[in-house]
């Protein structure tokens, strides 16, 4: 996704002269062409995320379109108030593209983990949250939304799913239909979840857009046994489901990252196993739930 991000940005910055790229001293080499060809719209701002987001708000107030990029915890958690007030409260247009979602940087430890991004950012009224499952989806969703007068967060990962889907901003995809449960899956976790449920009698909905949440598709394919598969803190999207299904009766189960510090290192796949988020563990959990 990171590679696609640099390519998408180059395309957009070529055609839209109002776009400005702000990097938190991350991914600088990847944007070499942007630095060379758009030197007055491409900045390596430095390692000062709060001011970078505030600065982006100033650009937005002058009708430029900021795209802010750094590692997930530094933009989401360190600059949360700036995203909330400068962009959310003031209803400004701007784009925040993170890399290294949840525990992608497993070897770097807790300071570089960010499984709480969706939970935190979803508390900001009016924000758009996008969790593309692969580079193609990012390209499509970014081009659809980068200038739609809202703050938008793109959650990029080093890991992708391989399904080739026709996705649309704000719309869930119906991957398969079944009767025993409704499985909801976000972003790149579709890779594991699809393999798990392929032969099970369940409906699988895939959300590449988290906010605005597609309630209509959820209601249309309602099942009173709902299983949410989240590549972020478990329960991060429960409010969205409950709000969409107000007054209806159902059982809600979560398969996601537990709310605890992950103190191990190693490879992401090892952490997946530790947290029981590897394919076999997900399969065991879903089979027990249906």
């Amino acid at each position: 996704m990171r590679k696609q991000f640099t390519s998408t940005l180059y395309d957009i910055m070529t055609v839209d002269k109002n776009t400005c790229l702000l990097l938190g001293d991350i991914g600088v080499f990847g944007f070499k062409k942007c630095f060379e060809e758009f030197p007055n719209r491409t900045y390596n701002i430095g390692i000062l995320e709060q001011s970078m987001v505030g600065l982006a708000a100033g650009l937005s107030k002058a009708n430029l379109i900021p795209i802010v990029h750094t590692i997930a915890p530094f933009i989401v958690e360190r600059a949360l108030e700036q995203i909330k007030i400068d962009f959310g409260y003031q209803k400004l247009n701007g784009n925040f593209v993170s890399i290294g979602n949840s525990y992608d940087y497993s070897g770097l430890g807790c300071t570089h983990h960010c499984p709480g991004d969706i939970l935190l950012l979803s508390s900001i009224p009016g924000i758009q949250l996008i969790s593309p499952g692969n580079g193609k989806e990012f390209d499509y969703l970014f081009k659809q939304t980068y200038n739609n007068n809202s703050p938008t967060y793109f959650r990029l990962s080093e890991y992708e799913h391989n399904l080739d889907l026709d996705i649309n901003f704000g719309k869930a995809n119906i991957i398969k239909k079944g009767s025993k449960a409704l499985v909801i899956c976000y972003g790149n976790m579709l890779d594991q979840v699809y393999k798990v449920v392929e032969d099970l009698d369940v409906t699988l909905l895939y959300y590449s857009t988290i906010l605005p949440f597609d309630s209509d598709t959820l209601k249309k394919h309602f099942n009173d046994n709902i299983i949410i598969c989240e590549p972020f803190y478990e329960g991060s999207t429960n409010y969205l489901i409950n709000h969409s299904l107000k007054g209806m009766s159902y059982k809600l189960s979560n398969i996601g990252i537990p709310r605890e510090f992950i103190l191990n290192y190693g490879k992401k796949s090892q952490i997946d196993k530790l947290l029981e988020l590897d394919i076999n563990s997900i399969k065991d959990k879903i089979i027990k739930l249906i």
Partner: protein
Amino acid sequence: MNDIIKKIVNIATLKKEGHIPSSLSILDIIYVLYNKILDIDSIKENRIDRDRFILSKGHASLGLYVVLDHFKLLENDLDTFCDFDSELGGHPTDKIKNIESSTGSLGHGLPMAIGLALAYKIQNFKNKIYTLIGDGEANEGTIWESALLASHHNLNNLYCVIDFNHSTDRALKLGDLKNKFKAFEWDVIEIDGHNQKEIYKALTSTSDKPICVIANTIKGKGISIMENNPEWHHKFPSEEEFNQILNSL
């Protein structure tokens, strides 16, 4: 100025809201800004390249509202200050016509002003960006991050006025603010923040660097019982005190 001060005290006393001493601390500065510095036509026309002023220390909103009202730039009724359905709150919002930014949480205005100044450079706009921060606000890390950014990007279209009333001294002293900003490669002008001639001169000076105006001010200026008395930060006069203040003005 006394009429403006009376209006601030009157509204705050009536509504039991607003920060009187903070408003009076910056009053001369924002009066000069709207009277003589800002390109008012560009503001009235809401041009994208208009002069912009961001009150970063948003708790002095009442002072800003009263000055805007004085120069007929406020469409709202001052008497609705902090009413349930009023737009005029204890901190300003950009939903109010002629107010640039929603502020309140400290340390947000200067980074936004820097973004605007950079945007004006990118788009070759000639107008200027002004912001006013408090000395307590200068405790925030974003002020110093932004100080680095402004000089690095040569934002000589930016003026940052610091309301240096020493309100922060009881918590965290700023020390030699002048040399600190100089070390961050700003041009620094130190003035009496209640001398309108000095304010005008500082805000019309030009440089190849961003300009920091250290305005030495008195919190509660003009009302002797409030001057430099932290007890009054968010306090409202009794009837007796109110009459005493009006008589003194």
